[in-house]
């Protein structure tokens, strides 16, 4: 009967595991405050003095600099904060994905590229800036960068750089100075020299958008305060868009086009690479005196010139939400310091990262940097990146391969139609996206809000049955998280109007507020809401 033994072993193992999960009070976060000293003072006066063990995620080449900067912060800050930081190299592209995967395990302070912002806000991975900090940051930094760190009206991150844009590096020994303004001539030069024209068009929407911005197309997205995308103004699928893909065709179909954005491609056969300031040192090392930088060229379609555009983005530094207000405040102090005028300047000097700080931007050193000068030359044609839906990058990057495969104008148009259809799909109502949100006391008290899914029936209507508890405010409305401005409420109720309260025209929410508690069935057929009391 050794079965018992086996079972016991199993049980003990299972138990050990379960106990580990169970030892924490479920409401507890499992984190003890990292403060070691000055507990008394903290509680009495909100003093921040203490030692904090934290993890900082920065790009690999900034690790050493960040360590020195933190050491300097420890010496100079007047609050008595001692930061004991582990600085890990995490690329700005990965940081977003990692934080969303597990916020708890993520860095307390982390750097990320702007495109990750909305996703991070939605995942509650960014701690909102306090009122004072927000006003200081807003004042000191470029408006475009501040906008990139804002969701709703609130600031969620600190500006790190303002140089996340691209321009053109070229090899002067291959490309004549006179040709740099014309895409057609550049492609011809590359083909003649058997050298590559490198621009990441097949795998990156960020670079590919250049052609669309050239012809005046836009893709502007708006979010609500939670980071949800509520609407888009997208004109890629238009006559201008068609001109854009015709321009793209000229490059992407060239045998000497290389879909890459690495500055080091110059070492393996490239004559032109479209990339940003971060590759400046690497390119300079390879090309030496032959390095040329310039704004992007123009392309010609039907006798008209279009100057290629670009994204004008930034990198941000975020603070992870904490449960301990003292630690949170200390982290904000550190982040504020690390993105302050002095540190941004140091980063520019050591790594050529273009500062977002207005005072730094105005300094002579920054003004005279050739990489940033090229970025500046490109800036009249660039578009502030703003907030863009995470899926857009996946949807739009397909255009490159589509254009390459297209054989005629119809094919090009199909690529745009395909794009458009997918963008629309993003905001399409479907069964899993239709919710009934009920807030049984007050809309502003999130604790009491309940979410119910509307289930699609065979006849195409969506419905649900719910219990409305007795409370002060028994209201709710039908929403689609993808499109908050498309809520359905009192105005759509056709059957069962007597069951709900008319709050009057002055109530903008237009909620469905039940007169009495009970069990109701709510049905939405696409135009009208039917309410039946069961």
């Amino acid at each position, binding site marked *: 009967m050794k079965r018992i033994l086996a079972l016991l072993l199993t049980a003990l193992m299972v138990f050990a595991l379960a106990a580990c999960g169970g030892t924490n009070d479920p409401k507890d976060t499992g984190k003890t405050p990292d403060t070691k000293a000055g507990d008394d003072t903290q509680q009495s006066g909100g003093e921040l003095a203490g030692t904090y063990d934290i993890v900082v995620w920065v790009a690999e080449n900034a690790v050493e600099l960040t360590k020195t900067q933190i050491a300097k912060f420890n010496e100079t800050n007047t609050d008595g904060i001692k930061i004991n930081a582990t600085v890990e190299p995490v690329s700005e592209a990965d940081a977003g994905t990692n934080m969303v995967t597990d916020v708890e395990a993520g860095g307390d302070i982390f750097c990320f590229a702007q495109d990750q912002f909305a996703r991070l806000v939605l995942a509650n991975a960014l701690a909102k800036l306090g009122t004072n900090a927000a006003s200081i940051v807003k004042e000191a930094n470029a408006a475009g960068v501040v906008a990139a760190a804002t969701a709703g009206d609130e600031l969620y991150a600190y500006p790190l750089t303002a140089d996340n844009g691209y321009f053109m590096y070229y090899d002067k020994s291959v490309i004549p100075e006179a040709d740099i303004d014309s895409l057609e001539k550049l492609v011809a030069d590359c083909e003649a020299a058997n050298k590559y024209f490198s621009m990441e068009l097949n795998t990156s929407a960020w670079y590919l958008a250049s052609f669309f911005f050239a012809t005046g197309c836009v893709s502007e997205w708006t979010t609500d305060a939670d980071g949800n995308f509520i609407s888009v103004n997208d004109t890629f699928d238009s006559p201008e868009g068609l001109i854009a893909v015709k321009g793209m065709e000229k490059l992407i179909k060239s045998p000497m086009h290389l879909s890459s954005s690495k500055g080091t491609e110059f070492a*393996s056969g490239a004559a032109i690479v479209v990339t940003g300031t971060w590759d400046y040192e690497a390119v300079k090392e390879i090309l030496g005196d032959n390095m040329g930088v310039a704004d992007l060229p123009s392309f010609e379609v039907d006798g008209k010139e279009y100057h290629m555009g670009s994204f004008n983005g930034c990198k941000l530094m975020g603070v992870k939400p904490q449960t301990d207000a003292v630690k949170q405040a200390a982290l904000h102090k550190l982040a504020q310091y690390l993105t302050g005028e002095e540190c941004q300047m140091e980063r520019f000097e050591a790594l050529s990262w273009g500062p977002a700080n207005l005072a730094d931007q105005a300094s002579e050193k920054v003004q005279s940097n050739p990489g940033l000068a090229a970025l500046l030359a490109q800036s009249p044609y660039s578009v502030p990146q703003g907030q863009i839906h995470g899926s857009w990058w996946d949807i739009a990057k397909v255009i490159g391969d589509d254009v390459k495969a297209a054989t005629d104008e119809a094919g090009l148009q199909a690529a745009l139609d395909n794009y458009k259809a997918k963008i629309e799909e993003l905001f399409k109502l479907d069964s899993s996206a239709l919710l009934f949100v009920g807030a049984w006391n007050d809309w502003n008290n999130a604790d009491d809000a309940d979410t119910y899914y509307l289930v699609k029936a065979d006849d195409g209507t969506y419905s649900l049955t719910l219990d409305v508890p007795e409370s002060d405010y028994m209201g709710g409305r039908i929403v689609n998280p993808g499109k908050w401005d498309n809520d359905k409420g009192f105005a759509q109720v056709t059957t069962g109007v007597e069951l709900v309260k008319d709050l009057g025209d002055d109530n903008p929410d237009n909620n469905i507020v039940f007169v009495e508690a009970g069990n109701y069935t709510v049905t939405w057929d696409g135009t009208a809401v039917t309410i039946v009391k069961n």
Partner: protein
Amino acid sequence: MNNTVKSPKRHMGLARSRAISNTVIHIVLVIISIIWLIPFVFILLQSFRCESAYQVGYVVPQQWGFDNYVSLWNSNFPKWYLNTFIIALVNAVAQTVIVLCMSYALSRFRFKLRKALMRFMLVLGFFPGMLTMIILYRVLKDIGLTQAHAVPGLILVYIASSGMGYYVSKGFFDTLPKSLDEAARVDGATRFQILRKIILPLSKPIVIYTILTAFMAPWGDFVFARYISFENSAGMNVAVGMYNWLNLDQITTKYTMFCAGGVIVAVPVTILFLCLQKYYVEGVTGGAVKG
């Protein structure tokens, strides 16, 4: 008989045609060997390149030197290497014990739920393991074995799931005659004594095969290990650490180091593999084909 009469002439023809075909085969084998070796030779050459650290369009370095190996030594690489070595070593021992226990029990005993158990594990294997990564991560995180403590965490997961890979060694045990056991049983030996005194000495190939595969596997794990170490360089294995060097922000300065690291990882594993190749072949042919 006709055959004997013809044989001398036929022999000559045979010998000639065999000589021709053997020459052709030798040529083919040389070509195959070149194709097989080219990438490795290239990696080796790149690791000695000193003039630049990024990818270039040529193979032979213009400036030879050990710079990349020196910078490897000064980076986190030794730490990662040690991590991986510990994981591989512990994994090799523990996984071998587990696999042998499992396969011996399933090969030699006939108990009630045996078939059901084997079928159950077969079915479990149909689920893509990739899916369970995230939940394993959470479980390990709750026990505190992620990030800086990823090494014991990884060992735990590797060992715990190693029982699933019993097929090959069970196949091997199946080929050992049962009469051995029966004779020993008659002499009054316990099952444990039979395993220790009779079966294990005969199982050298499969033991070495299991040790070898268990030792080699952790060196290449860059997906799961990356998840578990979660960007904490103290808990990374070589694969995760080196994989990060290929990120866009590091590749310009770390590419040749990546190649050098590749050489350092590959050399001991390759030597070990080549030395024990004979047993590997015996183990895999004895076991793998029987399922």
